[in-house]
């Protein structure tokens, strides 16, 4: 089982990804391996804890765009919700959505790191 098969089990819609990456699996894998760096540079939890909601919104928005393009469907859905909650200033809902997001995100990152 390779990275693509494994990430498909965790979250990725490979058909959608291959359509976007023009059936270039190598390119898709290469871009998947960039995700840990993107997430490390745009932390959400730390800023949520410190109450910097502007940065929470900005970072969640960044990750949302990237995971969407990587066809990580559930992560994209969670980050979309976090962005919406932040815009509505419903920070409690944003925080509870982030909790389940981080659990899934951890699995995705672990999988990617295993093949990096």
């Amino acid at each position, binding site marked *: 089982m390779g990275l693509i098969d494994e990430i498909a089990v965790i979250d990725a819609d490979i058909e959608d990804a291959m*359509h*976007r*990456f*023009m059936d*270039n699996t190598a*390119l898709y894998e*290469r*871009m998947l391996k*960039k*995700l840990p760096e*993107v997430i490390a540079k745009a932390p959400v939890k730390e800023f949520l804890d410190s109450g910097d909601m502007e940065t929470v919104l*900005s970072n969640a*928005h*960044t990750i*949302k*765009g*990237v995971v*969407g*393009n*990587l*066809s990580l469907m559930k992560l*994209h859905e969670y980050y*979309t919700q976090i*962005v*919406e909650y932040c*815009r509505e200033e419903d920070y409690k809902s944003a925080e509870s959505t982030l909790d389940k997001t981080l659990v899934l995100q951890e699995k995705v990152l672990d999988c990617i790191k295993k093949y990096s």
Partner: protein
Amino acid sequence: MIVDDQEINRVLIAELFKDEYNIVEAEDGKKALKIISERSDIVAIILDLIMPVMDGMEVLSELNRRGKIYHIPVFVITAADDDGLLQAAYGLGAVDIIEKPFKMVFIKSRIRNFIELFRHRNELVEMVEESVGKVRIRNSRLIEALVSLVEFRGTELHVNIGGVHNITKALLTELGRISSENKIEASEIEKIASAAIIHDVGKIAVPDTVIKKNGKLTDEEFEIAKTHVQRGCDILTDYSGRFSDVDMFRYAVDICRYHHERYDGKGYPDGLAGEDIPIWAQAAGLADAFDALVSERPYRPAFDVKTALSMINSGECGVFNPLLIKALNNLVKDGIPKEFYEE
């Protein structure tokens, strides 16, 4: 050019176009603007809105300021969930939105279509500019020929081409700045200024005994001198077929006929007053009066700028439009600007 701080987004779009175009990438707005200043081969900009250092909206504003937005199609990358931001981006000239996650088939055809559209548009603009340039050259040759006719009559009729042209242009530009109602497009001002050069062409039809007289004219001689405005219009009408630009011909005729009209109705030939006198003729009339005062004549030295301005302001040379007088005062408050007499 792809401008996005996320490499994944840049790579995806680059993959889409790498076989057709050379791809240039920038990870923030500042780097993008630097590349745009240095290169002339950018055919499209795919721009993320949220970026560090300089965001997409700032880049759009700067492209507007530089006029690039009319020549290069800009596509905005966004998650399409902020209507206010999207509206602002369209307002700043973005041609289309690329939504994340990308839908590659649509992106390719949309971007390609706009690149083609802008290429055709830019070609058309170049063709029009080239034609306008040719028209300008033909008009300027005609004006030079008419000026030569005037100058042939002797030093008394020496035409200071730079002076009247440049002062008229500066006056109308400054007038537009201080009064939005009187704002005229720069390209029209250029035509008016060129037309102003031949304001006195009718003098070639006035007898030497009057036109070259070295003293004060009698009432009868003055009446003859005044006919130069009508004679100028007649000459221009004879030449009308040689003007390549209808507007410029109209400006030239108006200026010839009305540059001695005065704001209080005490000028000639028709005694027009106020706004009945075309503003271009008012500007050329004031430019002519000021230019005459600060230029040397066979019978007197040139007045210094302070004296000339005070004579204009006090109405010694006739009453002019107060807004034009204000414009002139603004322009010469620190002495005669260099551009007044630059060829």
